[in-house]
């Protein structure tokens, strides 16, 4: 194990060097640009055997990865925001072809207005494209996830998107423990697909027209692959733990054993939330946090089990879905709770859009609001924002909600028809 300090982008580029993929096709976009920069330097210095294709667009980046992967090569790329959006069409194609492409994403807000800072709107937009999605809290996790992704991807025959928070971890330097090159190469092994375009024994035809009598069966088979990736993710996490002592599952439970109220969050903000949990615990409050690692496959049952004892949970979305019903993580996490005999109150917080900072104090406030929900035995308005300036209730600091109780529906909510009309 090598003790080092690196930015998230440098760590990811280093992991790519250690994986030494056959083909990398990439197009620069802030804040993931450093990854192809660092990697092309590795190529220029002869430290990898990779064919690096400096394509003319992200659309072509994903296209080259699909071509290379179908041809029998281990293919990787990196992107962010608009670049990822430009790939969307091909993300679906890659997944339906069941190609084990690994993409590292430095999450950045989507336009407009154009903004280069972090939120999850880019990868959340791609959440239904059939890719496995993993989110990292730290540079360490970004590095660890990428190495595991190679095997998860090839064993499940599904592409994997490894996300980290743009700038926050991608450009932030912090401590990290690295594996030796040989250890990584041995861990990921060689890519040996069963069929590929360049195979000697038989040709391979991919990307057919799927008529209605076949299309739905193809999709059902693809859905099964996502289900079947769950045990693979756990198994690879176990093997990685044997190697590093760092274990990975679908999510991390932080102080959840006896927690009355909890937060569900993804990415770097989880660290800030843990700090809040530590300090509130020191004051004797029974608070906890769940950091989701895999958004796809979504661990519906394990997540429900982890929350079966909490009374109220705040589900944090770093992306809007303009659904009038909360963000994407809220809708899926809350759906998981539906099967619980005793459902906790579930409140959604949209936060951190376009790089809006979230502080330890913000988490205090969120926990405070959860306790108020319990006190009133009333969820009130479950679709909330944190850290947005709101004329209805702003304090002198102009950043935090002052009026913590949101006047919303009363306890009777849902009992009379009118409540539903608006």
């Amino acid at each position: 194990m090598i003790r080092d300090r690196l930015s998230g982008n440098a760590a990811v580029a280093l992991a790519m060097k250690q994986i030494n993929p056959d083909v990398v096709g990439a197009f620069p976009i802030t804040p993931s640009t450093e990854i192809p920069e660092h990697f092309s330097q590795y190529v220029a210095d002869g430290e990898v055997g990779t064919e690096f294709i400096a394509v003319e667009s992200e659309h072509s980046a994903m296209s080259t990865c699909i071509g290379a992967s179908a041809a029998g090569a281990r293919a990787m790329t990196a992107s962010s925001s608009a670049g990822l959006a430009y790939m969307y069409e091909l993300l679906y194609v890659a997944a339906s072809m069941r190609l084990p492409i690994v993409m590292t994403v430095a999450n950045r807000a989507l336009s407009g207005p154009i903004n280069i800072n972090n939120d999850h709107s880019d990868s959340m937009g791609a959440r239904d494209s059939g890719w496995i999605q993993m989110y990292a809290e730290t540079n360490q996790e970004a590095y660890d996830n990428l190495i595991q992704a190679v095997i998860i991807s090839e064993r499940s025959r599904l592409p994997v998107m490894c996300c980290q928070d743009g700038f926050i971890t991608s450009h932030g330097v912090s401590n990290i423990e690295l594996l030796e090159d040989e250890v990584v190469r041995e861990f990921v092994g060689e890519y040996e697909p069963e069929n590929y375009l360049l195979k000697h024994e038989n040709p391979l035809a991919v990307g057919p027209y799927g008529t209605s009598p076949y299309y739905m069966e193809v999709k059902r088979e693809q859905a099964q692959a996502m289900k079947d990736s769950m045990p693979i993710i756990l198994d690879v996490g176990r093997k990685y733990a044997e190697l590093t002592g760092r274990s990975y599952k679908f999510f991390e439970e932080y102080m959840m054993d006896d927690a009355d109220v909890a937060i569900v969050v993804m990415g770097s903000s989880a660290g800030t939330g843990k700090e809040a949990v530590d300090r509130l615990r020191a004051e004797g409050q029974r608070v906890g946090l769940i950091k989701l690692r895999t958004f796809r496959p979504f661990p519906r049952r394990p997540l429900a089990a982890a929350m079966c004892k909490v009374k109220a949970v705040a589900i944090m979305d770093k992306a809007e879905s303009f659904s009038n019903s909360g963000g994407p993580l809220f809708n899926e996490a809350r759906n998981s709770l539906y099967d619980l005999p005793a459902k906790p109150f579930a409140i959604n917080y949209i936060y951190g859009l376009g790089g809006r900072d979230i502080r330890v104090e913000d988490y205090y406030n969120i926990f405070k609001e959860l306790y108020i929900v319990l006190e009133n035995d009333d969820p009130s308005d479950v679709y909330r924002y944190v850290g947005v300036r709101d004329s209805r209730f702003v304090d002198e600091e102009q950043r935090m909600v002052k009026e913590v109780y949101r006047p919303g529906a009363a306890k009777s909510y849902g009992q009379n028809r009118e409540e539903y009309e608006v």
Partner: protein
Amino acid sequence: MYERKRHARDINEKSTWQELTVGAEIYEPATSLLVNTGEWRVNRPVFLEEKCKQCMLCFLYCPDSSVPVKDSKRLDFDYMHCKGCGICMTVCPFDAIKMVKEGAE
């Protein structure tokens, strides 16, 4: 466990999702030969061997690869795949191909 089909000939519109090839791949050549596009034919080319000088233009211009050739000599049409477009008839300099209504003798 369900059995995955490996050959196009075993895959049809009754196949379940467990039986289809992963990623809708096909890993054998020219499975389209299983398809009878001869059914599309309205007019049918008739090969008049005695007039043929083996110039091969009919072979070259056939969009459906339906003029079989062996040892540099063309054989009779592959009626399972010929769609009856008639290009072979117009391209033939020796009137060695005539078009007749499908079904007519």
